[in-house]
């Protein structure tokens, strides 16, 4: 260990830092590590899609329609002879992008609204909270489908629709956390020092409500990936011929008996990515738990 080689004085004078404690806790959880590894694997694959030695995901081959997995096509081919492996790799981009961007939209809109509601209280809180409750009353996927149908079918619109549907969770979380933090003595100490409201929110409120929001965001990415697959399955997400796991499943359902591999791989992909984000999010939640500080 490196600690043993350090001079004794610095070893005793320097207590473990919060960051290192966080990393240690993450490392101590095999599930979180596995989740992180799965997520990382898919991210790397998606990023490397243009340079991987795979065939064009939209190139059709009429001589190889619905072929079972073989050396030439490790995951088989679909109903018009496109390579399923290649479409899986390129589809990972759509899925991950949809997951990350729609959650980014939800966080960027939801957190400021929630912090405002929690900080100002009164009428601001009443208005924001009632609208949030109205949005939460509609089931997440139904709301996303309705919004996507309204905006028109495309991957971008699907992301916006999913982002808006996921937003109320973040408003509520940020509002509750802000109200909790506002009662802390250190917020009063910020006012005693003479800090302006904006500085108070950005330096005292936001950093202290950040950990639970990060955890919620990680878990919501998993939900958003399923939502994107669902929208693509319904034809409201990624448009053909561009690949996405959801639209691949949509087509594959017609050939379940003749070509089960067409459904197996996209399904497994969704399953693994969602599992990965959930495990990672759970590990994050445990590692960031303030009760251990």
């Amino acid at each position, binding site marked *: 260990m490196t600690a043993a080689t350090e001079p004794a004085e610095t070893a005793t004078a320097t*207590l473990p830092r919060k960051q290192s404690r966080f990393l240690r806790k993450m490392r101590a959880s095999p599930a979180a590590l596995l989740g992180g590894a799965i997520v990382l694997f898919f991210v790397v694959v998606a990023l490397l899609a243009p340079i991987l030695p795979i065939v064009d995901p939209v190139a059709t081959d009429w001589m190889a329609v619905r072929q079972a997995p073989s050396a030439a096509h490790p995951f088989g081919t679909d109903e018009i002879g496109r390579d399923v492996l290649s479409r899986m790799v390129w589809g990972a981009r759509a899925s991950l992008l949809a997951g990350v961007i729609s959650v980014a939209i939800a966080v960027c809109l939801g957190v400021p609204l929630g912090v405002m509601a929690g900080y100002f209280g009164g009428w601001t809180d009443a208005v924001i909270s009632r609208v949030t409750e109205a949005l939460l009353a509609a089931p997440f996927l139904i709301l996303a489908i309705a919004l996507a149908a309204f905006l028109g079918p495309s991957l971008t619109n699907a992301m916006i629709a999913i982002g808006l549907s996921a937003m109320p969770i973040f408003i509520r979380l940020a509002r509750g956390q802000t109200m909790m933090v506002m009662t802390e003595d250190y917020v009063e*100490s*910020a006012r005693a020092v003479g*800090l302006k409201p904006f500085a108070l929110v950005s330096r*005292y409120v936001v950093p*202290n409500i950040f950990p639970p929001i990060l955890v919620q965001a990680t878990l919501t990415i998993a939900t958003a990936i399923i939502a994107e697959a669902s929208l693509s399955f319904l034809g409201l997400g990624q448009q053909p011929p561009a690949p996405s796991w959801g639209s691949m499943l949509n087509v594959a359902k017609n050939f379940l008996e003749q070509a089960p591999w067409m459904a197996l791989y996209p399904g497994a992909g969704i399953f693994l990515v969602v599992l990965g984000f959930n495990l990672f999010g759970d590990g994050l939640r445990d590692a960031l738990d303030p009760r251990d500080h």
Partner: protein
Amino acid sequence: MTAILAARDLRKDFVTARPIFGTPTVVRAVDGVSLDIEQGETFAIVGESGCGKSTLARLLLRLIEPTSGEVWYDGEDLAHIDKERMRALRRDLQFIFQDPFSSLNPQMTVGALIEEPLRVHGTGPARVRRERVAELLTRVGLRPAHADRYPHEFSGGQRQRIGIARALATGPTVLIGDEPVSALDVSIQAQVVNLLEDLKDEFGLTLVVIAHDLAVIRHMADRVAVMYLGEIVECAPADALYTSPRHPYSETLLAAIPVASYGARRAHTPVEGDPPNPISPPSGCRFHPRCLYATELCRSARPELRTLPGGRQVACHHAETLTLEGLTNAEAARSPAATERFALYARAMAGSAAAPTDKNNDP
């Protein structure tokens, strides 16, 4: 002496329940408090839990808005100036919190916490501010290297020192401590009290200390105000209050101080019952249900805080006629030999203090 901080008829109501119909339920936490805090003194406010002393401390610095009344500092009414001016004045008026575990932002390093008031009030370039942080850390008994650590790496006493350094950063004139030592271990309490006293002399501070325990502030305070149910019932120089209280409630508080000497027994003054519900305070004198000396007058008429000959203020109808018991003078109980040894010790301490010592500034 002139008052540096003065409160006039300060009131604060908290609404505890607001029904859709009917009148809201109100707790009058601070009820018409007037006091003058003089430049350079240590002013203590004592009373049991829930008497409104922490609310009063926050009102004095306008950390909460008063329902009515005025707070005068340097010719300005803090309760009515605009928010921007109040922010600027916070440079002179600082606060030390009770709980050192919740009053420091866990996401900021110690250095950032102490530097923040300097940044807010635009003091100097970054390099100068960092030097000042190092200086303040040394002054409160920590090391400059501690600036890069986070509050959770420190003990309670150390955190309270960080809180004090933060409060001192802008060079305030008035420091208000809301029970600054009550959350600490007894052994640490003395250290922090001594630190506050040293800093008071060094920086020429006016110190206002809130306490629920008369013992802690006995050797610290110049004057003491005793609060009961949102009102000041007695305000007197500390020595006078401790040896001869004039309000029955002060006597009760003094009787609660444990005596640490062999065979010490005081004629005990029993306190009966809990403090009344502040939502519906008793008629007349608010202390009468628990007072040993209450008469018919106390039950009907509310005593005003009035000034007795000699300058002490008491809110009791019978202040002139009651003979109340304070703390007996501990010095008198000592044997002649012990008195001599104490004198020798005092001389030795005076001698060593005169010699230049620099033990607080070890690198």
